[in-house]
């Protein structure tokens, strides 16, 4: 008898504990990002950005739950299930890793909870009903590069990219754009972040002698292939990098070899250098000063900016959704998703978003900015 009573008491306690977060009925944001593992370089700055999130949005208190997916798809799916079924979150944020974010999308659609992806993941049509991307699609970021090529009269280009989803996405997105402009792809080479050398690839690319070479890599990993090309005698001014590489780490590791090269980037990293007409300038400056006040000068990067933008998006969507339902209910989650799709043009620090039912990437074509490296810092190419 005594044991039965004990079990009942324990059960009551457990159930009570499980319901406490619900009783508060605040807005709950469930975050699952890669804080360890190979893409922790993206997850850690994102977490620092999340640390600066406000205490409340539209008068509702924010509950933020951050989980680590260890760059592991299975772990990311587990986290998402836990966030949706146990914590009853109103919105899921993450992951920064493309394959993990893709796997999470299914769970979010099943749980009818909107997902704000921190990775520009391409999903098959019909699969991204509940998933919205915070980063720009590679197709949008390819625009400033191809525009520059057109301006300079580039006729051929080579491709040196990661042998993973990021590299593949860039290849499939830039090919049609360049083709339309009459620019031919002459050589495609791959490498992995952990490789110690790209001599073989660089030799082949340099021998093909294209007018420009696109390097697709991220963070400090983008410096090694860049240096490899320069070492084989390729001109620095003809090398282009993608927005994954638009961090100061590229300049720190690449040093003199990246001087004069080009990088396609979102506006936030160079906010203060943008022309005043740019819709993201004020927000970008606001993000940069807040982030660098907390984390030191030169620490702001695009991953932290995406975390900052999550708040901007919610600040616009939550008041709309609140008119229909209270947080913590399935109705609120559905209303939030509808709000994302109908709220229209939303300037954020990384560009101008315009999500619709059909387009969950939503960045408008004017989003991308072409940067060049001059004297160890970014310079906006006009």
């Amino acid at each position, binding site marked *: 008898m005594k044991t039965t009573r004990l079990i009942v008491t324990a059960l009551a306690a457990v159930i009570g504990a499980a319901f406490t977060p619900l009783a508060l009925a605040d807005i709950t944001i469930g975050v699952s990002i890669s804080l*360890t593992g*190979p893409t*922790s*370089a993206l*997850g*850690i700055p994102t977490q620092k950005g999340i640390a600066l999130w406000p205490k409340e949005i539209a008068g509702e208190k924010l509950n933020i739950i951050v989980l680590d997916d260890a760059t592991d798809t299975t772990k990311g799916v587990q986290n998402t299930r836990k966030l949706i079924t146990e914590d009853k979150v109103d919105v899921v944020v993450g992951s920064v890793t493309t394959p993990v974010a893709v796997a999470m999308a299914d769970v979010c659609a099943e749980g009818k909870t909107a997902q704000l992806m921190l990775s520009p993941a391409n999903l098959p049509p019909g699969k991204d009903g509940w998933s919205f991307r915070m980063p720009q699609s590679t197709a949008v970021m390819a625009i400033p590069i191809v525009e520059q090529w057109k301006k300079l009269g580039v006729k051929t280009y080579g491709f040196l990219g990661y*042998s993973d989803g990021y590299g593949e996405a860039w290849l499939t997105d830039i090919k049609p754009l360049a083709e339309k402009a009459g620019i031919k792809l002459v050589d495609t*080479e*791959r*490498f*992995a*972040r*952990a*490789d*110690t*050398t*790209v*001599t*073989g*690839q660089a*030799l*082949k690319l340099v*021998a093909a002698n294209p007018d420009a070479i696109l390097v697709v890599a991220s*963070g*400090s*990993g983008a*410096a*090694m292939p860049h240096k490899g090309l320069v070492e084989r005698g390729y001109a620095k001014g003809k090398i282009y990098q993608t927005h994954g590489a638009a961090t100061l*780490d590229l300049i720190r*590791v690449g040093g003199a070899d990246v001087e004069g090269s080009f990088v396609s980037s979102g506006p936030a990293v160079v906010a203060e250098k943008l022309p005043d007409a740019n819709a993201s300038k004020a927000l970008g400056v606001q993000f940069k000063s807040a982030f660098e006040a907390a984390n030191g000068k030169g620490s702001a990067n695009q991953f932290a900016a995406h975390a900052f933008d999550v708040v901007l998006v919610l600040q616009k969507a939550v008041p709309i959704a609140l008119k229909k339902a209270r947080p913590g209910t399935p109705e609120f989650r559905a209303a939030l998703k509808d709000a994302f799709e109908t709220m229209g043009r939303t300037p954020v620090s990384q560009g101008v978003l315009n999500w619709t039912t059909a387009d969950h990437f939503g960045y408008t074509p004017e989003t991308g900015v072409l940067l060049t490296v001059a004297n160890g810092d970014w310079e906006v190419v006009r």
Partner: protein
Amino acid sequence: MDLSVAGILLLDGVTNGAVYGLLALAIVLVFAVTRVIFIPQGEFVAYGALTLALFQLGKVPGTVWLLLALAALSAVIDLVDAVRRGLPAKAVVRGLVRTLAAPAIVTALTVWVAPLKLHLLVQSALTLAIVTLLGPLVYRLAYQRLADATVLVLLIVSVGVHFALTGLGLVFFGAEGFRNPSFWDVRFAAGPLTLSGQTIFIFVASIVLIVALFLFFERTLRGKALRATAVNRLGARLMGISTSGAGKLSFGLAAFIGALSGLLIGPTTTIFYDSGFLIGLKGFVAAIFGGLASYPAAALGALLVGVLESFSSFYASAFKEVIVFTLIIPVLLWRSFQHGPDDDEE
């Protein structure tokens, strides 16, 4: 492909092969003496390169705190052990001093020297000291109690140690990569080939290390003791050779070789906290050539791995790793045909 391209690829392959060769030697050494398949060998490479990178920034690298913590932990275990076995106080104290003295001195030196940004060679020497001392402590804490376990158990422990060291690497060095300054910043042009100072440095260091290891095993008592342990553990023990001492020594050597490799390749590429694993794995493929037993065959295998990698990155860069790691299958086949069925598991 013309001759000059082939020449450049060959040079690049042999340069990388030299580093893989050093790692292969360390893996063979550790396996021969302790029967441990030492997967974390590559972690020492990353630790070496990144510890130096932090010295370059004028920061105290986290690896010294790891060193101190491991030394303290193993001192505590030794103390408990000694008390339980009722050893005399004098022997206990001597043991503790032996465990703690070197790590304590190196830590103090590091904390003092790090902000001064001294010459690259001083920093390198200190880096070597830190990482080398980690080796015996890793053996003491992770493997010594299990010294008589099966190869499989030791392999599983190795996987655990690998994950622990990689995770700690992320804590110490952060997620972004570093590139170290070159030891010797010159370039020699020989036709289409350019030989950088660092390449020459890699060759010279590899050859010196191989010769030094040869002399160590052939000429010194300790080296001979290691060889004896490798041939027959029980026999060596009966002859008064401490097998745990031999284990620590071999791990110390492995850590030293790993750290040195890290210093050698640090200036030629960007090293991340988790870069070591793949580099170590290629060393492992090379070690398989020698059946985890023969040093010359392992070194030869390493050169082959390096050259194969270099040429496959030219011809089919998307399949480079596939080609390199598939190499292990024909090698295993060849070795098993050569030896026939091997019942002598242990």
